[in-house]
């Protein structure tokens, strides 16, 4: 991946969008809202279901081991660590990559093949400001919102699973969560949500814009988006986790 190319695309998109005329900003805003709706609102249900299931699975697996070693009270801490810090951001990133990342690279690639991007350029409309910026900004914000949804659904899934398994457990679970979720967990999840969204959307736009002539380049762009975005998110997750441990 041309990392410098991606960074340059993001910087130029933002600078061209912010220096654009008021009329352009209105048009860009409309696309930004559409992108937020597609990535954030339309994916709420699938993220909520995935979050609930993941939360329930983690809680069930943990409760099959923790009580045996006398550490049932650690479930809240485990949920905070596994769901909020690590699993939530990664699972949401994978959903956004599969759903929005591929859609964006295919859409932009198809726009290039269909001559839409060339037509915009000839009219004096910057593809970076009009096409790239609203998608990057929309996905970054939507990924963060989805992450909040996922975390809430997962913690609720954990609550339901633990209350089904141990009858007196629900209150204890909630108290344990309250005690172990720290401010830094929330800051880390917000940071990861924004940055994963930024990474996914900028990689998708970059590969979409690299399509040149043939329609067969479009699925290749989607495939490169998926592979690169997954690796980039995992690498970034590792860096944040290192930083987290040292804090």
């Amino acid at each position: 991946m041309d990392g410098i190319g991606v960074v340059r695309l993001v910087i130029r998109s933002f600078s061209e969008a912010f220096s654009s005329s008021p009329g352009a900003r209105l048009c860009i805003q409309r696309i930004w809202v559409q992108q937020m709706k597609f990535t954030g609102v339309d994916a709420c249900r699938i993220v909520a279901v995935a979050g609930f299931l993941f939360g329930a699975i983690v809680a069930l697996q943990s409760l099959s081991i923790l009580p045996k070693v006398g550490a049932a009270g650690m479930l809240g801490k485990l949920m905070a660590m596994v769901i909020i810090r690590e699993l939530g951001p990664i699972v949401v990133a994978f959903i956004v990559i599969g759903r929005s990342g591929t859609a964006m690279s295919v859409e932009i690639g198809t726009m290039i093949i269909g001559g839409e991007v060339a037509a915009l350029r000839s009219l004096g409309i910057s593809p970076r400001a009009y096409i790239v910026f609203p998608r990057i900004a929309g996905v970054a914000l939507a990924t963060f919102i989805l992450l909040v949804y996922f975390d809430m659904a997962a913690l609720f899934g954990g609550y339901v699973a633990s209350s089904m398994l141990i009858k007196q457990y629900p209150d204890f679970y909630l108290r344990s969560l309250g005690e172990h979720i720290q401010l830094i967990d929330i800051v880390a999840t917000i940071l990861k949500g924004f940055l994963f969204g930024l990474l996914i959307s900028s990689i998708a736009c970059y590969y979409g814009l690299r399509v040149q002539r043939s329609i067969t380049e479009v699925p290749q762009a989607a495939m490169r988006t998926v592979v690169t975005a997954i690796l980039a998110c995992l690498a970034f997750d590792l860096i944040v986790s290192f930083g987290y441990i040292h804090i």
Partner: protein
Amino acid sequence: MKNPSHNTVPILEARRIHMIYGGRRILHDIDFSVMPRERIALVGGFDSGKSVLLRILAGLTAPTSGDVYLGGENVVSYDPWGVPWRRPIGYVAQNHGLRSNMTASENIALPLMYLKHTDKSAALSVARTLLKRMGIDGGDSRPSELSPGERGIVALCRALILEPSILLFDEPTVILDVDHADLVMNVLGELRNRIGLAVVGACTSESVAKIIGSRILWLKNGELEEDGD
């Protein structure tokens, strides 16, 4: 307003344009200029390089060497995603490049809304008026619901909505085949008289070339072989 007919400065100049792609020579030493109100037909076979030349003139593709001047400003850009001009030109591609998720009138209104900050309803009204002058009513259909000729007219309206000084039209045959050809030529004629619009149309047929151009340039194997009035 300055009368464009008295202007002797070329709107567009192509100087020593060479284009090599994939080891193959596409264009060789292309040199010509376009004056205000001029109508030029660029005629050539399917593989003659006329579409590439139009894309270079439109600032959408960088030549291997050579310069393109629009109003004296060199506009050759090597930025594949940038905006080539500070002021708009009219460019209609062979595939028309209409936004598929917008209606015909929304496609035409977009430049007005984006670049001129025109209110959406006012921009749509201007778009519908121009479409009507070209013989198309409504404009609420999506590009996929239109015939190729109608799509060509919508793309032409979008290219003309900002009243550019030059129109570059790749394969206008498709719109000249439909019933609206006279209406289209009338609108182009009116813009020529009012704002000095120059037209460069690329086509394969000499009969179409005679309709759109008063000056015919022949492009064979990437070279400008003949330049006759």
